[in-house]
């Protein structure tokens, strides 16, 4: 009996010993915190930032899980998207477009070197395009890739791409972060197929990946061979912090120098940091519009009067202010006016319950005595609004609409769906009303009008039963293939005005980016391109 007890004690102590051995082994193995502060020399300007996810593979030609913000630090485009949708020369110094709009000839900048010192020229541009086109099906969501016929390196610094048909947004789409950015020769795998990975991340951008630990951090240092103006900071450290509240705490402690992005911290946290007065805060210009898409194939929604009644029937200002705590701005335009060709004047559809009721009466939807839901020919006015259920903003908005429309005799069912399910039903047009948004810079306005006209996309449900549908679709096709700037502007004005008047796309609010930084950080500017990084102009005083 004593022997058994002795054994038991031995067992427990052995177990504890093993546990502690594993514990200490684990902790000594992973002595790997980013050495940002200590490793950087005295006086080095290090800016520490956080991102919700690991930056992923730094390959310019792939998507998720690679993070756009980090890809845009290393790799650069031929053309840069600047404020208001102006397209500025970047790796291409200038370009000419053939009169038929099919051939684009780029004069490349001559003093550009990759971070490993190798030259940037037409041959490497061509090689990158070839790698991208090997997997063209992955990239055909970009209109110009779908239209691309051939590419050629005309001479050392002249690159030409030819399209199958004219597609005016080509230059704008060349400004996107992926996949049309350029990897240096040393990064290419032996078979040239970058879709399976790159050897090392060699780009022409101002930053180079210096240190990286998956799921923990990435450190970027300046590219000594950078052709343009050197960034102010010496080093950018991106820590992976998935949780918004932790991000705020790390920021308050001083572990982070800035917080930047869309929805990276809660609205409450932002407000609190702002109110404390200890930090600099800012909100960007609209990066996109939250829209409600009405499916005009629905009998009730096919009537313009019903659509107008619904728009008059809720207090948009109060809803947006209430739900987003003022972080988003009430939207009257379907596309905000800071995109190319979108600066049109619109007449806002104001909050007016009496007008809403009058429209519904006029459309034949009457309120029977003793009932709360309007009817027409014995059918009640019932609609379903679908939204992505994990979204913190859409759910309260849906609930607000449900309550407000009940007051005008419309029964709204709200259905929160899993993201993939929502996307599926949206595409299959199995909905009455759906919350969505446009793409933002540098994809709009052309991507937006494209999906509105294309039958394969849920957005086109807004057009299904409009009397102007055929005319609109024709105008959209003309705009996308137009070669005349003035004509294009007129077409856009006409298309957007018609969409506003038809009221089947309901602008709700403008989505904005937020930034919070310590007072020793300066030079912050929101990038014009929604997906670019903001680090080049940042400076920090220590």
């Amino acid at each position, binding site marked *: 009996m004593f022997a058994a007890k002795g054994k038991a004690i031995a067992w*427990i102590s052995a177990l504890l010993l093993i546990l502690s051995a594993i514990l200490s082994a684990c*902790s000594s*193995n*992973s002595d790997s915190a980013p050495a940002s502060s200590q490793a950087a020399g005295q006086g080095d300007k290090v800016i520490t930032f956080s991102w919700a996810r690991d930056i992923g593979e730094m390959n310019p030609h792939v998507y998720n899980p690679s993070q756009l913000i980090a890809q845009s630090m290393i790799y650069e485009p031929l053309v840069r998207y600047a404020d208001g949708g102006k397209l500025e020369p970047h790796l291409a110094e200038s370009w000419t477009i053939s009169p038929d709009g099919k051939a684009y000839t780029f004069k490349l900048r001559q003093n550009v070197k990759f971070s490993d010192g190798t030259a940037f020229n037409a041959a490497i541009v061509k090689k990158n395009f070839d790698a991208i086109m090997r997997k063209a099906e992955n990239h055909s*969501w970009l209109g110009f890739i779908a239209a691309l016929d051939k590419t050629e390196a005309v001479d050392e610094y002249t690159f030409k791409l030819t399209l199958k048909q004219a597609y005016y947004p080509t230059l704008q789409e060349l400004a996107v972060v992926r996949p049309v950015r350029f990897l240096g020769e040393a990064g290419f795998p032996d078979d040239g197929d970058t879709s399976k990975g790159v050897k090392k991340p060699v780009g022409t951008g101002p930053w180079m990946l210096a240190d990286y630990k998956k799921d923990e951090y990435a450190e970027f240092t300046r590219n000594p061979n950078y052709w343009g103006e050197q960034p102010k900071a010496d080093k950018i450290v991106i*820590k992976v912090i998935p949780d918004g*509240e*932790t991000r705020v705490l790390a920021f308050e402690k001083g572990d982070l120098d800035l917080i930047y992005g869309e929805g990276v911290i809660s609205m409450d946290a932002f407000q609190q940091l702002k109110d404390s007065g200890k930090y600099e805060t800012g909100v960007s210009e609209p990066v996109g519009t939250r829209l409600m898409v009405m499916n005009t194939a629905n009998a009730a929604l096919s009537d313009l009067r019903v659509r107008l009644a619904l728009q008059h029937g809720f207090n948009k200002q109060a809803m947006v202010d209430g739900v987003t705590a003022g972080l988003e701005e009430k939207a009257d335009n379907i596309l905000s006016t800071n995109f190319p060709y979108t600066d049109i004047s619109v007449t806002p559809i104001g909050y007016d319950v009496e007008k809403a009721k009058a429209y519904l009466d006029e459309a034949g939807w009457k309120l029977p005595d003793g009932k709360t839901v309007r009817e027409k020919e014995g059918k009640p006015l019932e609609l379903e609004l679908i939204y992505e259920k994990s979204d913190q903003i859409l759910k309260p908005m849906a609930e607000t609409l449900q309550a407000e429309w009940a007051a005008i005799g419309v029964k709204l069912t709200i259905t929160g769906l899993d993201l993939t399910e929502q996307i599926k039903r949206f595409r299959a047009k199995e909905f009455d009303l759906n919350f969505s948004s446009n793409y933002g810079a540098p994809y709009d306005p052309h991507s937006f009008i494209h999906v509105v006209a294309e039958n394969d996309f849920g957005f086109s449900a807004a057009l299904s039963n409009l009397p102007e549908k055929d005319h609109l679709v024709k105008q959209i096709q003309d705009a996308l293939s137009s070669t005349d700037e003035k004509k294009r502007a007129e077409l856009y004005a006409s298309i957007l005005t018609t969409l506003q008047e038809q009221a089947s796309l309901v602008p709700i609010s403008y989505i904005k980016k937020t930034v919070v930084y310590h007072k020793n950080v300066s030079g912050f500017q929101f990038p014009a391109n929604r997906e670019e990084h903001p680090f080049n102009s940042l400076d920090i005083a220590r």
Partner: protein
Amino acid sequence: MGSYIGRRLLAVLPIFLFATFLTFLLIHLSPVDPAEAYLAASHIQPTEELIAQKRQEFGLDQPLLVQYAQALMKMCRLDFGTSYISNQPVWDEVMLRMPATIQLAFSSLLLAVIVSVPLGFLSALYKNGVIDQISRLLAFFGASIPQFWLGYLLIYFFAVKLDLLPVQGKGTLANLVLPSLTLAMGLIAVYSRLLRTSVLEQLREPYVLYARTRGLKEKLIMGKHVLKIAFSPMLTGLGMNMGKLLAGTIIVEEVFSWPGFGRYFIEAIFNRDIPVIQCYVLLSACLFILCNLIVDLLQMYLNPRISWKGRTES
């Protein structure tokens, strides 16, 4: 004893089959089509042909049972497929993150044991004394506070206000303190009270009285006899709480940016990375079964009154 372990391991098989089948079924009953999830995750515009092609590639056009059998065969070879997001084998991705999670789980378990054994024992010996009151308070607090909230509170006081420990990340021992404490708190709450009750029960047993009349030293009675037997329910609790610990790491890893398996699982859910989700659920089930087995075996060493025979027959 060998045959007992053998039999227990055999009993694991149906549980394993049930767990795999359940996850398999759940995933297939969910409205998310794996083929579409794959395309969405890869940022490829889904067309009817592409979806059909992927469905064929994943074997989704086969009857459900055939799919299940195929998946099972692959699992036995530790082949859990490729992640939709990273295109890497799921097993590699999981193994990359497993050490961090195991480290966190063990350190919090260790902490829980180190704190709750003396706490529970002392609060039984000095019933209704100061230590007992403190331990009661701690138990209420630890059992009722949500883990994420506790995590934030600890960060706020110890990292932001007092500036003693890092907010997040992994690397040094200092990084381990707050997440381990967060995870251990709930366990401490349960174990310390469990041990207290159990010690009090044992103290009423005749053998204690007998030992006292024999004139054995109180220290010896407590240390060598009472504590050992009183330890038994706590051990059972430990085994049962492994599942809780695993679920806890998901939250704690997210809050403390701990680069482990739980956080990876969360990301997989958001991305509808089905192979990863499947692998996680399966491994959790296996771990749960294994922990219970180990605890049972330990129990029998500690408490000889639980015989092998009795166990195998029941």
